[in-house]
């Protein structure tokens, strides 16, 4: 461990690894610290990612693909099922990853490119000079030391403590925090190429329950509900256990996974003097799906690209790092995040009856595209009155 780097990355998930990999490839000295003793574990994720998104960064590798997903099914509260099929749509769906292997591979790539990696090493405080972030004090096995950096990238996930210590409010309101529980279940009859989403007040009020194939006879089965809806006996784990008893009583649970998924709007600003925030810490999770892997990679790569230019120019002030914030916000990802937040805010107001009606209206339709947008457009075509309720969304839908 050196005492100074061009770029210090806090957190060894996909966002942090992508940032360090990009920085190292650009010839910068980069260091990743990860507080957990292993990269990729424990998993805090349902592991789904779109194929198109992933291919922007790397070729798919069978070592970290658990399942090739060709179908998605949305199951309404009354059982009405909307089938989205890759074969019929002509567009690709996605993969369910093995994050333990995937995350390690990404960090390995960063390391191969020259980045230093330190696990079981936790940031305990930023090094601040006035309002300027100059690195972090880190702790490894009880020993503290300072790592200075020209740019520090906070990729510390949903907890987002590092940015908070730097004076940026990352607190999530309860209604924007999905409280999640998931089991990796084996020995069950499932479609190994389908991801299924169950909706409704009984299975997951204002959230959804997922069954994501993890290969033959195995799946990530999980549920997320807004923390604001949780009560004793009605927490994520309770909903999951009830679903398991009803649908998969024969399943063997070989891993318990818990976590929080931030489905808020992104942070109002993701840069400060010497600091950039990426991935879940920046709150760039898709508010509809809760998916964050791809967006973490996009922001990690973009942040390191802007940081490299700023370092080359000798200016890593907030203003010099601002092209990162502006860049992702005006990108397709940024626009989709804003639209999907609004769509989420509408959909959580729907009663089970209304969801059933909407689902029935698009049951059996062949979609040419498998996206939230394509679904929404079809729902509106079949239910034109909905446009009145979605007035505030109209500009985002065209």
């Amino acid at each position, binding site marked *: 461990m050196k005492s100074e780097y061009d770029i210090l990355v806090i957190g060894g998930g996909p966002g942090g690894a992508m940032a360090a990999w990009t920085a190292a490839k650009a010839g910068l000295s980069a260091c990743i610290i990860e*507080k*957990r*003793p292993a990269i990729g574990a*424990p998993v*805090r994720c349902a592991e789904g990612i779109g194929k198109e998104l992933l291919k922007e960064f790397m070729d798919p590798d069978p070592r970290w693909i658990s399942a090739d997903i060709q179908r998605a099914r949305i199951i309404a509260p009354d059982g009405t099922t909307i089938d989205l099929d890759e074969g019929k749509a002509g567009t690709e769906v996605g993969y369910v990853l093995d994050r333990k292997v995937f995350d390690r591979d990404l960090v390995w790539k960063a390391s191969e490119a020259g980045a230093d990696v330190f696990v*079981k090493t*936790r940031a305990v405080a930023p090094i601040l000079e006035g309002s300027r972030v100059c690195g972090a004090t880190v702790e490894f096995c009880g020993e503290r030391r300072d790592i200075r950096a020209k740019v520090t990238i906070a990729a510390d*996930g*949903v*907890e*987002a*403590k590092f940015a*908070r*210590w730097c004076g940026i409010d*990352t*607190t*999530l*309101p*309860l209604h924007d*925090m999905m*409280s*999640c*529980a998931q089991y990796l279940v084996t020995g069950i009859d499932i479609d190994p190429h389908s991801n299924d989403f169950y909706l409704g007040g009984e299975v997951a009020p204002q959230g959804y329950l997922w069954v994501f194939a993890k290969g033959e006879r195995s799946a990530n089965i999980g549920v997320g509900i807004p*923390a*604001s809806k*949780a*009560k*004793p006996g009605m*927490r*994520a*784990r309770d909903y999951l256990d009830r679903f398991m008893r009803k649908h998969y009583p024969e399943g063997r649970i070989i891993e*318990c*996974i*818990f*976590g*929080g998924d*931030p489905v808020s709007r992104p942070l109002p600003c993701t840069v400060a003097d010497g600091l950039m925030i990426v991935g879940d810490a920046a709150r760039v999770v898709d508010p509809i799906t809760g998916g964050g892997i791809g967006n973490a990679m996009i922001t990690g790569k973009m942040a390191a690209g802007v940081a490299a230019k700023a370092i080359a120019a000798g200016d890593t002030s907030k203003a010099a790092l601002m092209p990162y914030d502006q860049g992702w916000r005006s990108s397709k990802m940024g626009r989709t995040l804003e639209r999907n937040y609004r769509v989420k805010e509408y959909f959580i107001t729907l009663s089970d009856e209304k969801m059933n009606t909407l689902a029935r209206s698009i049951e059996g339709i062949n979609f040419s595209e498998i996206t939230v947008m394509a679904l929404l457009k079809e729902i509106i075509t079949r239910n034109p009155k909905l446009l009145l309720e979605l007035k505030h969304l109209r500009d985002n839908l065209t």
Partner: protein
Amino acid sequence: MLTIHREICGYCGACVSVCPEGALELVDAYLTVDDGVCISCGLCTKACPLGALEVTDEE
């Protein structure tokens, strides 16, 4: 005050970012609360997917 039921906690950190005071910290594989900072508001008890957090009386 806030009681962490360690035998229930899944050390996932879901509670950490809803804390308005920044009193919670997931240190590697265990959760800590800074009692000097915690205001016993109970928001974190709702974020926990397992019910491992509880606000109890002072005494």
